[in-house]
């Protein structure tokens, strides 16, 4: 048996005494390196997502007082907090992606001007009669889009190098799905007659068109219509 190679200066006694395991003991890691995004590209996306989550939190905060339906007010309270936590977690990821000192606590950045305009449009309904228009923007359009984007990103980014972003998004996605389900239940309840259903559809189509036009949250997404 030939003598095992050692680094210069290290001795036999420093080598680990455990035998190498075989693929029969522990299944091999089949993940491959190299995802679609590099560090900088991930950081930019994190800032775009944070922009969306932060604005959703602020917009829903503005609406609570002007929405007459009590269960909607209280339900939004929880979703405001979840959105704040999502924005916070995304912000904390930025310094890990060499983006912390450059953007400070205000890491949010819109994908492009079109997406910023969409956010302003989503925030525009104000009067108490417009609960349908308010909720449609968030729960029929923006959140489903974000879930699509987050899930696609998780399959496309490097599974080992960028695992912290994946874990983070999996958690946000799980909560967002619960929000969408809640929003749907409320909207279905509010849109039982044809006129209300038409209001919801009109609002959804208008905003979905804007979303497709601007290329979604990052400005580069192929927008799926729900």
């Amino acid at each position, binding site marked *: 048996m030939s003598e095992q190679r050692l680094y210069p200066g290290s001795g036999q006694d420093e080598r680990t005494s455990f035998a190498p395991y075989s693929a029969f003991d522990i299944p091999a890691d089949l993940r491959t390196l190299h995802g679609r995004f590099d560090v900088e590209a991930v950081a930019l996306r994190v800032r775009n997502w944070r922009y969306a989550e*932060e604005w959703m*939190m*602020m*917009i*829903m*905060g*503005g*609406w*609570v*007082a*002007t*929405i*007459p*339906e*009590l269960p909607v*007010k*209280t*339900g*939004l*309270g*929880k979703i*405001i*907090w979840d*959105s*704040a936590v999502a924005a*916070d977690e995304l*912000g904390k990821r930025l310094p890990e992606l060499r983006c912390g000192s450059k953007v400070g*606590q*205000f890491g949010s950045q819109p994908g492009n001007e079109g997406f910023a305009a969409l956010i302003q449009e989503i*925030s*525009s*309904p*104000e009067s*108490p009669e417009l609960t349908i228009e308010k909720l449609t923007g968030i729960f029929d359009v923006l959140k489903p889009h974000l879930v699509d984007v987050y899930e696609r990103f998780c399959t496309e980014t490097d599974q080992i190098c960028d695992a912290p972003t994946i874990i983070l998004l999996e958690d946000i996605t799980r909560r967002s799905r619960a929000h969408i389900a809640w929003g749907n239940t409320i909207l279905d309840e509010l849109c039982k007659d044809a006129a209300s259903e038409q209001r919801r559809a009109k609002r959804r189509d208008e905003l979905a068109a804007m979303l497709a036009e601007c290329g979604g949250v990052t400005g580069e997404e192929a927008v799926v219509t729900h």
Partner: protein
Amino acid sequence: MKRFIDHDELARDSRFIRQDGAANSVLATLPDDVDTVVDIFEQLAPMIEKATRGTAAEPLYEEYGPAYNLVVLNEPIHPDDPALVNRLRFRLHGILIGELQALEGASRSLWDFPEAPWEFKMNMARQAWDEARHVQIYEKLLQYMGGEIGDYPENTFLFECACSEDPAMRVAGVNRGLEGLACDVFRDLIRYAEKVGDDTIKQAVDFVLADEITHVRFGSNWVKEFTKDDPDYFKRTQEFRREVDKRFSFGGARSARADAAIPLAVQDRLEAGFTAEEIDEIGALSAGGPSRETLREAARILAERHRAKKAQQTQTAAE
């Protein structure tokens, strides 16, 4: 969506009945003089009566006249009070309304102050969720006592007092004034629940009180942070909080006085970041109102006059 809304823009479903908050503001400025208190309430009587009609507070109005609020606010809730259930529901309903306006105030801070530090937004978002749960909790407690939303009129007094357009003033008013009052009221409710052995009320309110202490702490920290380089600004926010605290003392019903219906929750306030001096000061602020004896006497006269007026109306109608 515009920044800053007025109290009359708060949206409500059809169960809620809106009442003018003037009576509550008046309470804060009442002198320790029976005749003046009686005069003021007689002037307010038509407005109070209108807001009470058709609500569960109507029997209280029938019984005590325009000063029913004085009786309800100033007399501690006793297990052997004949109007116990109605008064307890009245108080729970009032708290629920306070929680609702606190939810609206905290949520609104997220929209009204977009440039605020991120940690401030995190605190306000957390408070929005907490207040939303408090609304749900008090709705359940109200139902537990056999009441429903809309049984009593709502006034937007709390939102009016606390929703300043300046962030430091806003947190001073909402998180230290309003939330501090909540600590006093909830501690009192826990004492009542202990007295009658009601663990459902006791445990739920104890959890809520823990949240409120956290909210006061948010306020204590942010007032300091927002005003740290400007002692004059700090003084102005303290001034504003004092003003709010005076109005929230309801003419001494909430105070450090021996005859207070709702005593100051000193230990809870200390834990929430109030200094001992600030607590003494709140005690002194609320000590200036009429004594409980004055209010009792005024309430007795008002109830008597109310009954005499009713008897006369019945007689005229019969003729």
